[in-house]
Structure formats: C-alpha cells, structure tokens
C-alpha cells in the first residue's frame, strides 16, 4: 500500500480514493427491486411505513439538467438524523413516467434550535463526484428564518433548498445548473 502514503506535518495520512461516476447502469446493483431486477434491495424509498407512524410525509421532485430537462438516470439518497430517528432511503428517477423521485418518511424534529431538514445526496452519470444538498420545509417559517445555515445562503438562492408544501407532499426539485441552481454543500 506504499502508493497510498503521503507525508503530512503531523502524521502519515492516506490519499483519498478518487470518486468516479455511478454511471448509467447502477439500477440492478443499487436499486434492484425498484427496477424489477432479481436482487434484494438494500433499502427502499418508503423509509417509514404507514402502519408504523401516523406522522408520515412525502418528499417528491425531479432532477433537472442545465437545459431544464428532467434527468431519468439519477439516484437520490436521503439521510436524516434528528437524534431520535435515523432514516436512510434510496430511489432512482428511472421508474416514474415523469422521472420523479419520491420518499416516504417522517418529518425530522428540530434539534438545537435549527430548522428541521433532511440531507439528499445526488448521484448520476455526468457527476464524477456526488452532490450533497439539504431539504428544508416551507411550513417551518419561524425556524427557517432564524436558521444559521439558511441565513448563510444568499436570499436569492435560499428557496432552492426549501421544499414547498403541496397537497399531500412536499415538492423539492433539484436544478443542477442555471438560474435556479440548487444550493449544494461541501460535506
């Protein structure tokens, strides 16, 4: 493993393995049941089932490229941890006729006075490194207004990471580029 070694001021550390794209053909490996392949899925997009919890929410959206076309081969992962519940889900945009991703989960609680949010990670052909974003909620106006992370985002871009409450779901579209480009975070 000699080639991994680099010399740091304080200690020897290893060089990060480079990231590579998930490519267009991930579905049978990473989201097999959703795409009807004969392999057990690690997780699904229905993170919380209706019989377990009455407090369900649905987060739904599309991923758009730089020409505003919906992307049919993206994979989205959702992670949330509010200290009480840790939830992880995964969904590809290729099985919905309009290329939506959909997650069924619970709304995270506010911790340490922060506005509640979930993390989304976006993977796709054409992304050599995955992208991290956060989903905040439009019906949390008070907490959103005081949230340090949201306030660190310019006013014009803040709405790109606030899911809009609609009838029965929160809408969260992801724009990879352009005027409405979603805020992505260095995580």
């Amino acid at each position, binding site marked *: 493993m000699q080639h991994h070694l680099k010399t740091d001021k304080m200690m020897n550390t290893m060089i990060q393995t480079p990231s590579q794209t998930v490519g267009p053909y991930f579905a049978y490996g*990473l989201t097999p049941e959703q795409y009807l392949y004969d392999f057990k899925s*690690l997780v699904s997009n229905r993170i919380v089932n209706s019989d377990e919890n009455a407090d369900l929410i649905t987060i739904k959206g599309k991923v758009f490229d730089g020409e505003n076309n919906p992307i049919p081969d993206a994979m989205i992962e959702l992670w949330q941890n509010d200290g009480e519940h840790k939830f992880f889900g995964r969904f590809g945009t290729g099985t919905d006729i309009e290329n939506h991703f959909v997650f069924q989960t619970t709304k995270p609680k506010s911790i340490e006075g922060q506005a509640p949010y*979930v993390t989304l990670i976006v993977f796709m052909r054409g992304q050599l490194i995955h992208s991290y974003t956060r989903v905040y909620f439009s019906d949390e106006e008070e907490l959103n207004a005081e949230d*340090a992370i949201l306030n660190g985002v310019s006013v014009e871009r803040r709405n790109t990471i606030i899911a809009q409450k609609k009838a029965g779901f929160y809408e969260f579209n992801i724009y*990879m580029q352009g005027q409405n480009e979603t805020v992505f975070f260095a995580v």
Partner: protein
Amino acid sequence: MSDFAESSFDIEVQPSRLYTEYTSTILRAPSKPLIILKKSLAEKTGPLFEDFNLGLLDNDLTKNSIKNGQPIGERIVVHGKVTNEKGQPMPHTLIEIWQANAAGRYVHKVDQHDAPLDPNFLGTGRCMTDSEGNYRFYTIKPGAYPWGNHHNAWRPNHIHFSLFGNEISSRLITQMYFPGDPLLEYDPIYQAVKAKGRELLISKFDLDITEPNFALGYRFDIVLRGHNATPFENR
C-alpha cells in the same frame, strides 16, 4: 471531531466536477461554488449496515445468479482493505458492487451494446469488511464496452464500488480498474482524476491471493474520506 468539513474532497486527487472531455458533465455538474457547511448531527453520522443480512452468495457473483450453468469468463477474486485517511481500518462497513459481464454487457435494460447477456451472471453483489477492514469477493472479470461519449470510445474493464463508511461525508462511489489496460489512457472518466490519484484506482495483480486452479487475485485498497474509525455516538 471538527464541526467543519476537515476531510472534504481533496482537490489535488479528486476529479473536478466539470470535465468537458466527459461530455455528460457539461449539463450535469453544479456550476456554482459549493457552500461550506458547519456540520450538524446528520453530517457527523450516516447509515450503518453492520446488521444487514447479507445473502449467502452476495459476495460471489460467479454463483449468485446461476440459472443453468456457470457464468462465462475469467474467474477472479478481489480483495483489499478499507481504511480512513489516517490509515485506520474501517470494520464492518458495507461494499456494494456492480459490473458488466465478460462480454462487456450490463444486465441494465438501457444497455443496448450488441454483446451477449450471460444467463448465469447478473453482475451485482455485496460484501462487508471484517473487523480489520478487509473484504473479499468473487466475480468474473468484466469486459470492455463501447459508449457514446466520442468517436470510438470504449470504457476500460472496471468494477463499480459503492461504500458508506461511518458518516455521510465518507460516502464513496468509485470504479476499480485493472493493471496494464490500454484503454485507461483514452478514458475521460479515469483521466478526469488528478494525476496524483489515478494510480489508486488501478488494482494490483496479487499472486498471494490467487487461488491455484481456480481464480486470479487482484488487490484494491480503498481510503474513505474522514478521520473517524468508529461511528459517532449521539447519546
């Protein structure tokens, strides 16, 4: 543990997000600078799959989808160690694997390359690192295949890897290549990686792990972002 992304993607090693030779990045790579985030609980943690119930044959792609015989191709065994940036082993971390078959064809319905599917090879599996961070799986050496990026573009032989580590910042999706592949020089996905990092994506032929009369061995060590060998406890 720092509240900031001390172990962000190393720009001296990692590919840039926009790499125009890889044409799909042009409309899909974020164009605005990323916003630096003070880590909250969610960023200091991530999904752990220590208790995930792996199927008996999940780590053997040569056997996990047999229908009427053995898959065609060169049987290989791939192993390696998963560590963090301090070199500490990452125990009990999940690895997902997927790849083309020996003819260079993916099972994926979108793949229309005119090469045969193998009824006995799905091309996906999983394994878990042991208490020392070591992993191992069996598979068939994947074939090269053409793609539409540019005239006469061919992907080098590769296996896709997906890893989680302990926190969402250690999440990694990468591709393992094979030593001496002449296509690497022409592959924009591989070449997008900075010179300092490229060699790390090429597995090493390993005679010690090669199993006599059975399978050639390759070693592929993986370094996840981060400095924490154990999951963050939020109790």
